[in-house]
């Protein structure tokens, strides 16, 4: 299982990468492995705002649909349109294939999330 240092992680297996005032959000390697072949992604609308733990996207594998939650309150400023035609990118490169870019979040809220080491321990505890 791959885990990338320097990202923030949620218990629902989303990651957030901060660059300046923006955050990239995606799903982790653990999540894509658990879901299996991903065949469809329902992306949020740009400019849509969400509270922390709101369902903002849906990722569907062959067998099932999984709600994806925004770990912190934020506004969607961009979505990864490539996922509409190539949802399998979430399987192939989960830490490159972000789902959306967010802004307008409180930096304090990030501190409620896990760092890479804590997330790895958390995943191991689920085995």
């Amino acid at each position: 299982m791959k885990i990338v240092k320097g990202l923030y992680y949620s218990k629902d297996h989303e990651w957030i990468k901060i660059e300046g005032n923006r955050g990239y959000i995606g799903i982790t390697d653990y999540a894509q492995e658990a879901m299996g072949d991903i065949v469809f992604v329902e992306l949020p609308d740009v400019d849509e705002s969400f509270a922390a733990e709101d369902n903002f996207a849906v990722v569907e594998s062959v067998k099932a649909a999984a709600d994806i939650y925004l770990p912190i309150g934020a506004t969607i400023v961009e979505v990864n349109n490539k996922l509409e035609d190539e949802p399998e990118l979430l399987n192939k490169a989960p830490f490159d294939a972000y789902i959306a870019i967010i802004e307008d979040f409180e930096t304090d809220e990030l501190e409620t999330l896990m760092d890479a080491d804590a997330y790895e321990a958390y995943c191991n505890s689920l085995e």
Partner: protein
Amino acid sequence: MGKRTCLYDMHIQYNAKIVDFAGFDMPIQYEGIMDEHAATRNAIGLFDVSHMGKFELKGEEAKSCINYLVTNDLTALVDGQAMYAPMCYEDGGTVDDILVYQHAPNNLLLVVNAGNKDKDYKWIESHLLPGVDLKDITNELCQLAVQGPKSVALILSLTNISLGTLKYYHFLDQVVLADVPMLISRTGYTGEDGFELYFDKKDAQKIWTLLLEEGSSYGIKPCGLGARDTLRFEAGMPLYGNELSETINPLEAGLGYFVKLDGEDFIGKSSLLEYKVQPKRKLVGFELMDKGIARHGAQVLNPDEERIGAVTTGYISPTLGKSIGLALIPYAYDKDNILVQVRKNRLEAKIINKKFLKQ
């Protein structure tokens, strides 16, 4: 922990993801549903289906006994032949859909859905004719499905059978494969040519390993229940619990070919005769025009947004790459488009032939 088949340790060894299915810990997939699906369409898929219920029905009147319980007419069935047949309640609702193998008219093998096994056993037991014995032999046997266009070459290379003696829906008993005697039938649930193998469970790991080794040059892959479902769905085959149920009769499910209303009497016949005169629902295929996946249970609406039915199965077809599904809707519905409610969206779909692979 659920029940385990004789191949559970193999599933773990081959890195299966295990899920609960009808009380069994079963592999949903090994490497991935898409690859397993493709292997079965293009080469060979190997499935452990030992969880399927298996009953022996023996006695002078065994064939008459089961013929009265199923909607298909077994009269013409000969020794060494198998037949698919829905089994119904008096009201036409479906108890289960089963396979009947005839060793002899007084010696039959019934293969039933794992999730219905106990219910089926009680149902058949309560309708036994004098001198007919029913025995559950599920736990004595390993059952494998070897499916796909190259499965013929593999099985011929490992046995001395000839296809001339093993036509579609026929079987041979006491075939020897790697010193193991087995029943081999030309049957399956994938829409591909293929076989099902029944043999003593003590040889399960040996046969499983041998098939994967000998099949590797053909591109064989172990396949889980995930691919089994996408394969049968693309081939337009029903799954009990989706397209058939206690409240969905076989005529509604489009299985009229297996309901012989002009043959022998059977339980449910009068209800199905009535139903045929005034059908209420039909199973249709559809393709989504909007992006999304319409899954089992999704509501179906007409263009005026009135609810008219529900999706029974839906997937993005691994073979076709299209988002397709089956839906149960009013028989009288004559438009060529429907709407499907997926979460907060109402997606456009057009009705298409439900033999998805044949268009």
